[in-house]
C-alpha cells in the first residue's frame, strides 16, 4: 500500500492488494468535532477482496465487476476495455466527441480543479481523488495504445502505464469516486471538464463491457425499460399507492385529495421520481395540494414510463439514457398535454430538459417545477403564513438543477418568502457542493459503498449543513430543516442524517421544498411536517 502523497497515475497498474487507505478525512464541524462522534472507516472484508476490485481504496462501487478466474478472462477483460476506449473516439460516440476531445487533449495540468472537488477535499486532499488523476490515467492508456507518439516515444509523452486487469478495474472503480457534479469544470481556465472523461470510463464499462453497478443498470434502467419504473412499481401498484395516499391525507389533514390520473384535456403532466411515492410520499401529496390550490389543470400519468421521471442512463450509459428519454417523451406526447413539469428530482430535470433536448425533434416543452412554485407564491395564488415555518431552514442546491441548468433563484425566492429563518449555505447557488449522492451514489448501496458515500462524498456537504445551522445545533427543541428539492439529494441526506444520528441527537430534519410550502398554507389546520407535531 502506498502513502497517498506518493501516488502517481502510473501506479494504477501496480500489483498491490490495495493502492491506498483513507485515513486523513477533514474534521467535521461542531458538534461533530468531538472524539467518538464518528465511527472509524472500515476495511473491506477478506471475501470481498477475493471477489471484487477492492484494490483501489478498499471500496466497492461496481458490484458486477468481479475478478477473473482464468488468464483468458483477464485478457478478454483488458481487450474489451481497449475496444471500448477506441470507440469513445469513434462515430459511435458522436454526441460527445467534440467536448470529449477538447477535455482529453488540452489539459495543462495546472491543477486548479483540485480544490473545487468535494471528494478530494473531504479525503484530506487525497491524491487518488484529484480530478486530473483519473483523467491522466485514461490519457496514459490512450497514448500507449492509440497514438503514434505513444507507440514511438512511450514515456516521453506519458505512455508509461502498465495495463492489466488491476489497472482497468481500478479505473472503473475510480470512475465511481466522482459525483459528476462538474464543480471542477467551473474553475478550469481552459474550460475543460474532468466529469466528461469520468463518464466516458463509466460508458466504456457499461456500453462495451456490460459492467455497471446493479442499482443503476439491472435494477435501474433495465428495470425501468421493462416495467416503466426503476422502482419496479407497476401500474396497479402505482394506482393503489395514490389511493392510499388520498385516504391518508384525508385522515391526517382533513383534505379530500384526488390525484388526477390520465385526465383528458389537462395542460400539465407532472413527472415525479417514482421513488418519492415509496420513500417520501408526502412530496407528491404536497405537490397535489399546491397544484390544486393554485388551480392548475394538471394530471399524472399511469402509463408505463409516464409515472417515473428518473433516467439513470444519464450517469453511465448514453444508449440507456436515450432509450428512456425517448420512451418518456412518447408517452407524454401520446397523452396530449401541453407541457411536462418535472417535480423535485435533479437528475430528471437534467435528463429531460438538457440531455434529451437534443435527442429528437418536435418535443413537448418541459419545465421545472421550481419557477412554477415561485410563481404561485409571487402571484399570491397560495395564501401562506410564513410564521408556520419559523425554524431554521437552509437550502441545498442540487447540482443538476443549479450548476448544470441555471435554475438558482426561484427556489430561494420561495424560501425567503415563507421561511423567516432561512439561511444560505456557504458557498451556495452555482458554487454549491454536491450532496455526495450525485451520479448514482445515492442509490448505490452494495458492500461498503455507503460508507464511502456518507463519510467521504457527503462530508463537505455535512459540514456546509453544520455551518449553516451553527449556533442552533445544540438546541434540540428547535428543528433544523435542510431543504433539498431533489430525490437523490434527499437520499444522500437520509443516509447522512441516519449515519450521524443527527435527527435523533440534534433534531436535524430534511425534505423538499413543497412540504415547506404546504406547511405554510393558512388553510391547513395542523402542521404538514411531521416533526412539528
Amino acid at each position: 500500500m502506498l502513502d497517498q502523497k506518493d501516488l502517481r497515475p502510473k501506479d494504477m497498474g501496480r500489483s498491490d492488494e490495495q493502492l491506498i487507505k483513507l485515513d486523513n478525512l477533514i474534521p467535521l464541524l461542531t458538534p461533530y468535532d468531538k472524539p467518538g462522534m464518528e465511527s472509524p472507516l472500515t476495511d473491506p472484508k477478506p471475501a470481498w477482496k477475493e471477489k471484487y476490485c477492492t484494490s483501489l481504496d478498499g471500496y466497492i462501487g461496481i458490484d458486477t465487476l468481479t475478478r477473473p478466474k482464468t488468464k483468458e478472462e483477464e485478457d478478454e477483460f483488458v481487450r474489451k476495455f481497449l475496444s471500448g476506449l477506441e470507440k469513445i473516439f469513434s462515430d459511435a460516440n458522436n454526441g460527445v466527441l467534440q467536448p470529449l476531445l477538447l477535455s482529453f487533449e488540452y489539459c495543462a495540468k495546472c491543477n486548479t480543479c483540485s480544490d473545487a472537488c468535494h471528494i478530494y477535499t473531504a479525503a484530506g486532499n487525497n491524491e487518488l481523488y484529484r480530478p486530473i488523476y483519473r483523467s491522466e490515467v485514461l490519457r496514459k492508456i490512450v497514448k500507449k495504445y492509440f497514438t503514434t507518439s505513444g507507440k514511438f516515444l512511450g514515456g516521453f509523452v506519458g505512455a508509461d502505464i502498465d495495463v492489466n486487469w488491476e489497472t482497468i478495474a481500478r479505473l472503473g472503480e475510480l470512475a465511481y469516486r466522482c459525483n459528476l457534479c462538474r464543480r471542477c469544470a467551473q474553475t478550469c481556465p481552459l474550460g475543460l471538464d474532468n466529469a466528461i472523461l469520468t463518464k466516458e470510463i463509466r460508458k466504456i464499462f457499461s456500453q462495451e463491457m456490460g459492467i455497471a453497478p446493479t442499482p443503476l443498470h439491472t435494477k435501474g434502467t433495465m428495470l425501468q425499460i421493462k416495467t416503466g419504473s426503476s422502482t419496479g412499481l407497476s401500474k396497479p401498484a402505482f394506482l393503489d399507492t395514490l389511493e392510499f395516499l388520498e385516504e391518508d391525507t384525508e385522515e391526517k389533514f382533513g383534505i379530500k385529495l384526488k390525484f388526477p390520473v390520465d385526465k383528458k384535456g389537462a395542460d400539465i403532466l407532472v413527472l415525479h421520481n417514482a421513488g418519492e411515492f415509496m420513500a417520501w410520499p408526502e412530496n407528491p401529496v404536497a405537490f397535489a395540494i399546491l397544484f390544486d390550490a393554485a388551480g392548475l389543470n394538471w394530471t399524472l400519468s399511469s402509463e408505463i414510463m409516464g409515472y417515473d421521471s428518473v433516467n439513470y442512463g444519464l450517469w453511465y450509459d448514453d444508449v440507456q439514457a436515450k432509450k428512456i428519454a425517448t420512451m418518456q417523451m412518447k408517452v407524454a406526447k401520446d397523452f396530449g398535454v401541453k407541457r411536462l413539469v418535472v417535480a423535485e428530482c435533479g437528475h430528471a430535470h437534467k435528463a429531460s430538459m438538457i440531455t434529451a433536448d437534443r435527442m429528437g425533434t418536435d418535443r413537448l416543452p418541459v419545465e421545472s417545477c421550481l419557477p412554477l412554485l415561485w410563481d404561485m407564491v409571487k402571484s399570491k395564488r397560495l395564501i401562506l403564513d410564513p410564521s408556520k415555518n419559523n425554524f431554521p431552514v437552509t437550502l441545498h442546491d442540487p447540482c443538476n438543477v443549479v450548476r448544470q441548468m441555471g435554475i438558482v433563484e426561484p427556489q430561494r425566492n420561495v424560501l425567503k418568502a415563507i421561511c423567516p429563518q432561512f439561511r444560505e449555505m456557504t458557498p451556495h447557488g452555482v458554487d454549491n457542493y454536491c450532496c455526495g449522492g450525485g451520479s448514482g451514489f445515492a442509490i448505490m448501496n452494495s458492500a461498503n459503498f455507503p460508507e464511502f458515500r456518507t463519510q467521504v462524498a457527503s462530508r463537505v456537504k455535512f459540514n456546509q449543513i453544520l455551518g449553516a445551522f451553527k449556533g442552533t445545533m445544540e438546541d434540540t427543541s428547535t428543528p433544523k430543516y435542510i431543504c433539498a428539492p431533489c430525490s437523490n439529494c434527499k437520499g444522500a441526506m437520509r443516509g447522512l442524517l441516519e449515519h450521524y444520528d443527527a435527527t435523533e441527537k440534534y433534531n436535524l430534519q430534511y425534505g423538499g421544498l413543497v412540504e415547506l410550502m404546504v406547511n405554510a398554507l393558512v388553510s391547513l389546520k395542523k402542521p404538514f411536517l411531521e416533526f412539528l407535531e
Partner: protein
Amino acid sequence: MILSIIAYLSIVLFLGISVYKAYQFAGMPFHGRMDLYPVPKEKGYEHGGSYFEETAWWSKPHEVSHIREIIEMLKEIIFIKKLFENQRPFWWISYALHLGIYLIMAWTILLVIGAMFELNGILVAADSSSILGLLVFYLSIVTGYIGLALGALGSGMLFLRRAFDNTLKKYTTPQEYFNLLLIFVALITGIFTWGNDLSFGYAREVTGNLVTFTPFVADGLLTLHVVLVGIMLTYIPISKMSHYVGKYFTFHKVLWDNNPNLKGSGVEQQVKNAASFRPTTSWSAPHIKPPVAPEK
C-alpha cells in the same frame, strides 16, 4: 535566404495548422448539451441563472447578451481570469508567460512595421522627426523588453515549478517539460541575440532582411535563434500548447452553448441532421440493441 524561408514558413505553418485545427473542431459532429452555469450571455448571469428560471420559458424570447459573452471571453483570454480567481500563485507565473507572449507578438509586428518604415525612409529611432517613427521605436522597446523578460521568466518559472512541485511533477510528462524548455530557450537566445542593441535597431535590420529576402551575414547565435523560433512556431499548433484554439470551443460551443431545441430553430435542424447519421461503429454490450416496447 534560408533564414527568411524558415521565418516565413514557420509563421505560415503556425497560422495554417492553427486554422486547420479550428476547422477540424468546428466540423465535428453536433453534440449534446453540456451547459455549465454561470453562462455569461444569460440574463441571470450575475447569480448564474438561465432562461429555465422563467415559467413557460419556451414561449418567451431568449434574452441574451453577446457583448457580455465577448467581455467574459476577453477577460479569460487577456487576463486568464479563472486561474487568477482560483489559483493565484500559479497565475503569476502563467500570466507572466502569456503576457510575455502577447507582448512578443506585438513586438514582432512592431519590428516588421519599423523595418518597413525604415525601408521607406522613415527613421525609427529616438531622434526621429516622425511621430510614427518615434511611436514605433518606443513601443518596440517597451513590448520587446517586457515581452522577452516576462516570456523567459514565465516559461522558466513554470518549468522549475513543475520540476520541483511535488504534485505537479507527478503529472508532468517529459514532453511537457520539453514544451516549456523550447519556449524558454527560444526566448533566451532572443534575449542574447537582440540584447546587444537595446534600441532594437539590429532586430529591425534583421527583420527587414528576413521580410524582404535580403541576404545578410548571420552569426551562429542569430541562426540558432531563428531556427528555434521556427521550430517553436511550427510545434506549438501541433502540440497541446494550441489550447488557444480549443479554448474557444470549450467555452462557446460546450459550456456556454445552451440554445434550446425549439421548433423552427437552427438547433432543431442540427438535431435532424445528426439523427440521420448512421454510425459505422457500434457498442458491444449485450443490452445495446434497439429499444423494445415495454411490457404492458
